[in-house]
């Protein structure tokens, strides 16, 4: 009896030692990937959402311009999401709509609807690094987070804005990405991206994205109400602000067709 008793703690000590060894054996790449998978896992199943948003574009001389738009998004299992963006401001592009089927490591499929011509134009979208609506956001910065989009490397733990964070290096898997790497700060509590640094093709720091005012939807999904992107090379910046956001609004595949693009209002 005594033997067994004394054996038990020894066994669990041995077991935890084994576990520690195993954790230490997990490489930085494996840990990075595990964190990315957990991040994606926590954000599955939201189905669809509709948002009203503004982009505030600032030039180096602090001139400001506002763009307004509505965004419809459909969660696609095991692929990038589908998105329909309808522009409301500036007035000359009012009614212009943009349809995007994003893909993790393939080129996205994109169409633009020009209401004056009643014409849907396909966009050659091999290059995802082009700016979205003259902003500091590239198309690839706005598409959904998919695990296959990057290879990962856990760098360190760090405090950011009072939160315990993982710092992860992400290298884009897409060969035509505009970046060599992204450094991402994820809070350990909810696996939400808090800050991302983007490094250009010459591996110098190009942009920093920070997320602000995270709100909880459907008791599970966190969304930042403000994304702030600063370009260090041009000194321009863009804020993407969400005014309204609704989940599970009943959107389906047919709301993301060319026919739907043509009748977007």
């Amino acid at each position, binding site marked *: 009896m005594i033997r067994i008793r004394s054996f038990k703690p020894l066994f669990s000590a041995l077991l935890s030692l084994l576990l520690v060894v195993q954790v230490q054996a997990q490489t930085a790449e494996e840990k990075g990937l595990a964190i990315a998978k957990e991040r994606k896992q926590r954000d599955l199943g939201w189905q669809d959402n509709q948002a009203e948003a503004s982009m505030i574009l600032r030039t180096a001389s602090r001139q400001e*311009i506002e763009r307004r738009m509505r965004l419809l998004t459909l969660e696609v299992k095991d692929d990038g999401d589908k998105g329909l963006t309808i522009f409301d401001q500036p007035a*000359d592009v009012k009614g212009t709509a943009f349809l995007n089927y994003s893909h993790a490591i393939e080129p996205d499929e994109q169409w633009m609807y020009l209401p004056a011509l009643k014409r849907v134009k396909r966009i050659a979208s091999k290059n995802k690094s082009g700016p979205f609506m*003259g902003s500091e956001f590239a198309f690839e910065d706005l598409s959904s987070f998919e695990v296959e989009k990057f290879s990962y490397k856990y760098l360190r733990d760090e405090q950011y804005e009072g939160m315990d964070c993982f710092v992860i290096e992400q290298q884009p898997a897409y060969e035509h990405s505009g970046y060599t790497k992204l450094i991402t700060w994820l809070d350990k509590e909810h696996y939400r991206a808090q800050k991302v640094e983007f490094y250009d093709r010459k591996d110098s720091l190009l942009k920093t994205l920070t997320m602000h005012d995270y709100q909880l939807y459907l008791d599970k999904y966190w969304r930042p109400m403000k994304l702030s992107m600063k370009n260090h090379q041009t000194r321009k910046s863009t804020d993407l602000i969400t005014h*309204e956001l609704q989940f599970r609004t009943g959107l389906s595949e047919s709301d993301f067709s*060319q026919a739907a693009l043509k009748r977007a209002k």
Partner: protein
Amino acid sequence: MKTSLLTLGVLLAGSVMADTQTNIRSAIEQRFYFQDGLYPKQHDSDLSVFIEPEFYHSWNDGADSVNFKPFFRYDSRDSERTHMDVRELMWLHVGDAWELRAGIGKVFWGQTESQHLVDVINQTDFVEAIDGEEKLGQPMVQFSWVQDWGTLSVFALPYFRERTFSGVEGRFRTPLRVDTDNPLYQSDDEQEHLDWAFRYMGYLGDTEIGLSWFDGTNREPVLLPAMQGDEAVLRPYYGQMQQVGLDMLTVVGATLYKLEAIHRKTDQDNFYALTAGLEHTKVGVFNTAYDIGWLMEYQYDERDELATSLGQNDLMVGTRLVFNDIRGTEILIAYIQDLDDSSGHSGYIEASSRINDNWKWRVDGWFFSADTPSDPAYLLRRDDYVQLSLEYYF
């Protein structure tokens, strides 16, 4: 009660699909012509204004909507160019996998940039722009099935719109005035001839395919010399036609390959025509945010010299520069060479940029050269112009 009203208000405000929208597009345009006109009454400059308001209302949770878009233009020189039109007055009902449209509207078919062979539903509002991109509103009933395998649409077009032509004081005209008040029709039903059209649009991997069929009044008139009192004029003759059209687009990396081909049968002609080309886009050129696009399209028309279109055996090359700045600045330059006649070429430039949220400037220019009288561009050889526009949007 108060709370529930407030909740309701928040819910309604939260609906992303707008119910009622009002837009205005308007501009003041000044044209300068580089040469004296060929005909005595023509002018060297032209001031014009237009306004195009648009009213949209939807109900039934967005399943039903009406869009109304009238258009008015005043031209200081050409009374034929001073005109109005209902560009759109359309009711749309969206079903589960189908759409029904009834009213007046505009339909665009096709993929190429330099000319639109396949696109035959709407009549060209030729006094608006010589590139033929401006269209008159077409009365129609359209039913579309939207399926996984593509979209199939059928169009019934109960009323025909006549093409607009410049008056004696306008530019871009024929030596004789086009007598738009006295058109001729092949069909006894004249403007009331019921035209039919079908279109399928679908995907085959990375290729978009459009197939279309049209049976009805030809939108392109033949101009027949006639006497109107003492005056020699040209009377537009609108025959019947059957046209089958194919349009395709394939994406290969950063390049779009485009094709439009038609076969048209009229009481006078039976011919093939095609436009084929590519558009290649390079983003972030010269270490900036600029995009540069290269366009090249070949135009062929079996009718050769008899073709009423400008492209019988022609090559268009162009470049589009997109600045990706907050002003949305863009420049498009294109050059079209007649491959049968080295003297026959034309070019155009389009540039535009925002001034602020509501105002925009635009510069358009067209340049023509043709020494051969049989070339349709020969009529335009003295009509080179630059147009400055100040546009207002709301």
